[in-house]
Structure formats: structure tokens, C-alpha cells
């Protein structure tokens, strides 16, 4: 019997933390050494009750399959889950995730991964029958929606098995321990990815549990987060209203769902997200040019419940980009750096310097000022063109008002 999962629900665990992320914007892959090395520099920001990593580009041979990473309490739970999976998914490949022995890692659950695609989603899900599926892209988004619901429902309804990672060509590796121990436990030097994020956890109110460690993975999203969200109740209520079920009782889970809801389901440009999650003050919005003031005002009014209040710095990973954001009055540290086609974000500059002693540029984003590093894909233009944000940029640069509002 593994007691590490007992904290599943009912308790929310606010936490202090260390976060680190690195992306090679050209898409070159590199192994987990660097990120372990960097996060270990911030050992004192975590307390051994949680550490983890997310990596993108690690499963090129299965890139069309959802890579499900699971924690099981015991082999019975695994058996039951696998029987269930057989019904729902076409399982391309399944295996235990290889782990090494590490004296500092105690009581790990059973950890396994499954590369799957859902069988015909229409026959599986009653609700999805109502969707109007005309072409491949419709099917693709319906499939994503199916996976999203499957993962949240599965985790919500389960006490002894959890899906901790559910994206394609990416994976989350986490557990209870210091991040560097977790990294070695998972043998991350055997994986090669173009984007890595990592997290060292300092939960304050309870002992950590494996499922509650970061990063939080959901579809292609991975979120690492340092902070405690004072608006948790409001934000949770907001995502609940749109059908998300919160099972992990962590702020990070809610943050992940916010990203998924806003970006994937409401089609809001990533460039606009900071105007929701860390919205400008009303008094700042009043200074926006008249032609677009209403847009930002409306955005804030409609998504007022998605404003994330309280201290946070987050790094969000996705197949296409790495995104980092601070709360709007910058109550948590966040530093960014660039060196050729490598880009970094971290809680502390020291960890960046550890792996990249002299970056071309280091800067400290303001509160509410996002950092976005896009993976360069040939033929794909960044979507910033013609957005209100670009207009804002132009306006403030031409009006010498840079101090009033900075836009990436």
C-alpha cells in the first residue's frame, strides 16, 4: 500500500518553489543534464517534498500518439486501469518508465507510460456526438477535447491511479524529492528534448505527494509555478463553470486549466493571455488608445474571474513555445536570458549562469509582462501580426509611453 497518494483531494497545498525553463528555439534537442544542473543550483528554494521536469520532443517515434504517464498505487490499480484503457484506446506501446535507484527517493508509486490514440471518439463519448465534425481539423480538436475530458474525469474519479502527463511527444517526470534527485531517479540524461521545464517544490502546509508535484501536465501543456494564488477559489470556480474538474488541489492545476480553456477552447491569442491572467490596472487601461481601449476593457470584464491574484511566477510549456509570466505586481522572482538560440527563464539568475555563464542578454520581466519564446517552425509566422497587442506596442512606442505599458 502506497500512502504517497493519500493527499489527493480536499487539501490544497500552496507552495513556495524554484522554477526553471530552457528552450532551443531552433528545435535542437538536448538531454536533461543541463536542466538538472540548473535547478540543483536552487536547492534551497525547495525542501525535498516535490520536484519534477517536463520535456518536449522526447518521443519522436511516437509523436502522433498521446503519451500518457501514469502513477499507480499498486498493481491492482494498474490492472484495472489497463483493462479500461483497452476499451477506450488503441494502445500503440506501453512500458514501465525506467527509474534508477536513488536513496533519497522513497516509496515511489508504479510509474508507467502508454502511447495511445482514442478509438472512435464518437462512439465512446455521448457528449461529443453533438459536435459538428466535418473535416480532419474538426476531428483533431474533437479528439483533443475528448482527451481533455477523459484525463480530468479519470483523475477526478480515481484514488489510486493518476494520469500525470497526456501530451504528444512530451512527458512529465516528477515525484517527491529534491528535483536533482528526481531527475537522476528518472534517468533524464537518457531523454532528448528541445524544451525543458523543471520545478523544485517547497510546499508549506503538508507533506508533498507524488501526484501533487510539478510540473502539472495536461494535454500538451505543462505548467511549473512558484506562488500561492489568493484568487484560487474564484479561478477554480471559473474553470469549473467551463467543465474542468479539479482533482489535485493545487494552484498549478487551476493555472493549467486556465491556459487550456483560454488558449485552446476560447482561441485567445497567447499574446493576449497576460491581459487576462495579470490584467493591467483599470487606471492603465484608461491610458490605452481609445480605438482599442474597449477591447482590453471587455477582455478584463468578461474574464475577470480568470485574473490570477496573489504572488506567482509560472513557466508554461507547449509544443510550440515556452511562456513565462509574473503576477501583475511582481511578488515572485522571474528572470529571463537569451544566448544564441537558447532561451532561459528561471527563479534565479544563478541557475541560468550555472549552465550558461555569459548569456547575450539577461533581463527581469516586469509584473504582468510576459516572456514568450517561440519554437521556430519553417513557414509559420508568429500570430502577433494585426493583433491589438501589436497596435498597443506601436502606440506606446510612438507616443514615448513605454513606461506606461510594456508589451512584448
Amino acid at each position, binding site marked *: 500500500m502506497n500512502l504517497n497518494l493519500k493527499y489527493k483531494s480536499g487539501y490544497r497545498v*500552496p507552495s513556495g518553489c524554484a522554477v526553471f525553463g530552457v528552450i532551443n528555439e531552433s528545435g535542437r534537442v538536448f538531454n536533461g543534464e543541463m536542466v538538472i544542473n540548473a535547478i540543483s543550483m536552487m536547492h534551497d528554494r525547495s525542501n525535498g517534498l516535490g520536484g519534477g521536469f517536463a520535456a518536449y520532443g522526447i518521443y519522436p517515434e511516437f509523436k502522433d500518439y498521446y503519451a500518457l504517464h501514469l502513477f499507480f498505487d499498486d498493481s491492482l490499480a494498474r490492472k484495472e486501469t489497463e483493462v479500461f484503457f483497452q476499451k477506450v484506446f488503441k494502445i500503440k506501446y506501453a512500458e514501465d518508465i525506467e527509474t534508477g535507484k536513488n536513496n533519497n527517493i522513497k516509496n515511489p508509486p508504479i510509474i508507467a507510460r502508454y502511447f495511445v490514440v482514442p478509438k472512435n471518439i464518437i462512439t465512446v463519448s455521448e457528449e461529443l456526438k453533438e459536435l459538428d465534425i466535418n473535416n480532419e481539423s474538426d476531428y483533431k480538436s474533437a479528439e483533443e477535447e475528448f482527451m481533455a475530458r477523459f484525463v480530468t474525469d479519470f483523475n477526478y474519479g480515481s484514488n489510486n491511479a493518476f494520469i500525470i502527463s497526456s501530451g504528444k511527444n512530451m512527458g512529465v517526470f516528477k515525484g517527491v524529492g529534491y528535483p536533482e534527485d528526481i531527475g537522476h531517479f528518472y534517468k533524464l540524461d537518457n531523454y532528448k528534448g528541445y524544451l525543458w521545464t523543471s520545478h523544485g517544490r517547497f510546499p508549506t502546509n503538508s507533506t508533498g505527494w507524488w501526484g501533487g508535484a510539478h510540473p502539472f501536465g495536461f494535454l500538451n501543456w505543462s505548467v511549473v509555478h512558484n506562488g500561492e494564488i489568493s484568487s484560487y477559489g474564484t*479561478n477554480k470556480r471559473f474553470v469549473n*463553470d467551463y467543465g474542468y474538474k479539479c482533482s489535485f488541489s493545487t494552484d498549478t492545476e487551476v493555472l493549467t486549466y486556465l491556459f487550456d480553456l483560454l488558449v485552446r477552447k476560447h482561441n485567445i*491569442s497567447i499574446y493576449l493571455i497576460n491581459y487576462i491572467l495579470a490584467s493591467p490596472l483599470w487606471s492603465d487601461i484608461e491610458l490605452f488608445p481609445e480605438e482599442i481601449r474597449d477591447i482590453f476593457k471587455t477582455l478584463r470584464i468578461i474574464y475577470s*474571474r480568470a485574473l490570477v491574484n496573489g*504572488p506567482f511566477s509560472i513557466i508554461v510549456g507547449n509544443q510550440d513555445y515556452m511562456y513565462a509570466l509574473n503576477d*501583475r*505586481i511582481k511578488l515572485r522572482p522571474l528572470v529571463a536570458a537569451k544566448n544564441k538560440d537558447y532561451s532561459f527563464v528561471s527563479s534565479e539568475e544563478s541557475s541560468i549562469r550555472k549552465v550558461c555563464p555569459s548569456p547575450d542578454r539577461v533581463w527581469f520581466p516586469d509584473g504582468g509582462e510576459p516572456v514568450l519564446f517561440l519554437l521556430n517552425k519553417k513557414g509559420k509566422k508568429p500570430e502577433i501580426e494585426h493583433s491589438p497587442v501589436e*497596435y498597443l506596442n506601436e502606440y506606446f512606442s510612438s507616443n514615448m509611453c513605454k513606461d506606461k505599458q510594456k508589451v512584448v
Partner: protein
Amino acid sequence: MALKLNQSEFEIHRDEQKCISCQVCVRQCSNDVHEYDEDNESIISDNIKCVGCQRCETLCPTGAIRIKQRESEFKYNYNWSPGHLKNIYKQAETGGVILTGMGSDKPYTIYWDHILFNASQVTNPSIDPLREPMEIKTFIGRKPDKIDLYKSSGKNMKNPVFLTNLGPQLEAEIPVLFSAMSYGSISLNAVKSISRAAYEFGTFYNTGEGGLHKDLKKYSESTIVQVASGRFGVDKDYLNSGAAIEIKIGQGAKPGIGGHLPGEKVNYEVSTTRMIPEGADAISPAPHHDIYSIEDLAQLISALKEATEYKKPVGVKVSAVHNIAPIASGIVRAGADFISIDGFRGGTGAAPQVIRDNVGIPIELALASVDIRLREEGIRHNISLLVAGSIRSSSDVIKAIALGADAVYIGTAALLALGCHLCQKCYTSKCNWGIATQDPYLTKRLNPEIGARRLYNLLTAWAHEIKEMLGGAGINAIESLRGNREHLRGIGLSEKELSILGIKHAGEAW
């Protein structure tokens, strides 16, 4: 009828050593309690006439007067309280319904006082509102489910087209509005004080069903015009004079009961404002006689929206009754942009005491259950929820918002700021504070300049306190508290009460 069984409610203590016989008390009492005896050069007071409004006590320059609640000399009986005896004696004398004013004073549980708010420690910094921005601006109106993206015309972003139509919104600088109190039930000076304070602070007041006096049109952008069952003063111009429209179905103090403004209060000004003959009784029927069902309400809502070209939010005010959650759901589906719920402790100018003290439910429970019900139906975020019915302090405001309200209405609190001492005799039209009266001798006592200033001060003070509490909880925008019940804990409540309120008990962590 010489036999009167009732006892006086108050004792007037006059310290003869301090009384200088200046007669301020004599001149200030509209109930003729005090009388100057020229022979003795002294003042004699009659306890039985005293209503306990404390006007004389407040204005006495030497502090010679003290009004004390008289201890009942009825024989003690737990079952037959002095209240029962007094009412029976009165009714045996008059054969009438016992009238009363203001909200119920009966000792039902006040849930606000059993809820505690949270603050940050260590893991999350609290924020000092004097040094950091702290936002309490609130928007009231219908909100769409999601935003639809802008469309830009070619490369030119000068005129981006925004596909989402937000619909009309009220923008309040504080989530506190002044609730419906009609001109007629209160004096013009009282309405002037309230409307001016709302205008200057950037919030809203509600006309009640008294129509809109011509002197108040300059505050129209801060006005919510009410349409009640009597339809007093309602025409197209009236509807378009406000920032929003509220259909009044019920009032917390008297659910299911209409209103009656006696003819003697209908002076020239009231009659022109209400558009009724001078001296005629103004009777508001118990129901709207064109609303006997939810579909009738939907029709009235669309009629009002048509009349105002969809430029103003239209809300519906209902009293908190047992079935409030499904009723609220029906109102959302009938097309209302906001719902105002008035709890059973809400005030009134006149109500049968038996109704006021026995009908309806507390606003805290009504709010919690409406919020949950609307969320279950996935329509809570579409509308704004205003609550009323005895919001007494900024902490009540904070707790209401954390329970799920968008904003609150204050009525009694506003009148208290104007001088009301809660004597509950509003229905007599003898209000010594110049509030609930139309007698020109008394209405003069309320200088709207002073009244507006005091109300402005009250809002300023509450805004400060709300910001302090928000900052303490590590929140710098009021919207992050809305429905954030994680920040509330119950104390001394049963499992059932906690489950209805949707909060944990004090001592339970996240």
C-alpha cells in the same frame, strides 16, 4: 376610550441640574413629547409618546436628556413576551394590522456574524492598499460566455472590429450601491443626499418606485430607475433617464406584499413625480398585474429593453423566499441582466409587522443557494447578482462578495448615515430626522449637502476597509474575491448551515 393597557416603551431621563430650559427638545420633537411649562420655567416630558428616535437627546446642548429603553413591567413570561402583549393590547384597541418600519429586529441568526474572513501569512504576502494599487471597480450587467476574437480590416489595425457584444454595463467604483428607496417613502432631501453621493462617488442609487424628481435628472447616469407594480412615474422618458432599469417584484421586508403611500404624503411634488393626483393614495399592488408568471416577466423585460433600445441593463429585484434559487434561475432565463435579492432583514418604510418578522429567509443563505444553483445550471457568470437586506458594514460587503455576490445594495446603512436612529416609526410620517416624512417642517432638518457628504464619507470609509481586507488576503482586485469561498470560514454553525453556505468551518485548512 379611556382604557389603555399599553405601557410606554421608553423612559425620558432629564437631568434637572443640566437642563437650561432652552426648549430645543420641545421644538425638535414631532411627537409632542416635551412641553414647556411657563409657570415653572421647566420642561415636562410624556414617556408614552416617545418613539425613541433620540433627536432631542442628540440636539440637547447640555446633554441633559437620556432616552432609555424602559424595562417592561409586564409580569415575566417566556412564552407571552412583552411584544405579544403590547401587540394584542394595541389590536384590541384599534382592530388594525400592526405596522412597523425598517428591517426585522428579531433575534434570528445573523450569518454574517458567523463567518470569518481570511488573511495571508508567510506563503503569500499581504498587500498594503495605501502603497499598492487596489481595485474595487465593479461591472454590473450581462456577460457573454466567452470572447469572440477581433477582426481586423486588412493590415490596418486602426479600426479593429470586435465581435463580442458585451451589452450595457454599469461601472461602479465600489461594489456598494444605494438600494431602492422611493421619493414619497423618504423625503426629497434624503433622495437628493443619496443621489448626489452616488453620483460623486461613482456608484448608483435606485429610485424605488417613486419616480424621478426633476431635480434629480442631473444625476441620471448614477440612477437605477425602478419599475414596480404601481408603475408610478413610469414613462419612456423615465426609463431612458436612468443608467439601468430594475423591475421590482418583491421587497425583503414584505415579500408578497404591495405598498401603500397614504394620500396625506402625496403633496404637489410627490404627485407630479409619481404622476398621480395630489392627495391620492399611491397603492402598489402585491403582484404586477401584468406579471402572473415567469413568461410575463420575460415579456416585460423585453418590452423595457425595446423601450430603451437595448442600451440599459434591465434587472429584477426579488425578495429572498424559500424557493429563491429556482426563481433566480427563471429570472436569468427570462433575460434579466442582473438580479437583486433582498433578504428578510431588509428595511421598509411600512410593513405589517407580522410579515416583516416572519416571512422570507436571510440573505446570506439565499445568496449562497442562488449562486450555487446558477452555477450548476452554467448561467451564473452570465448575470450580475446584487444582494441587499441588512448589509451593515464593509465586512458584510466582503463576505457577501466572497459568497458570490457581484455587489451589494445598502438602504438602512445609508439612512443611518443620514441620522436615522432606527426608531422604526417611518410609517407615521413624523420622522424627526427629516428622512421618512414629507412634512416641510421636518424635511428641512436634512440638509442634502450634509447628507451627501456623510454618505460619501461612508462609502470612502468602506472602500478603505474593503481594500484593507482584500490586501490582507493578498488580493488586489475585487473580482478575485468574487465567489472565492475558500477565504471564508464559518464559526458556530451546523453542518447543514455550512453546506448551504458552501464554506468550511473555522479551523479547517484549505
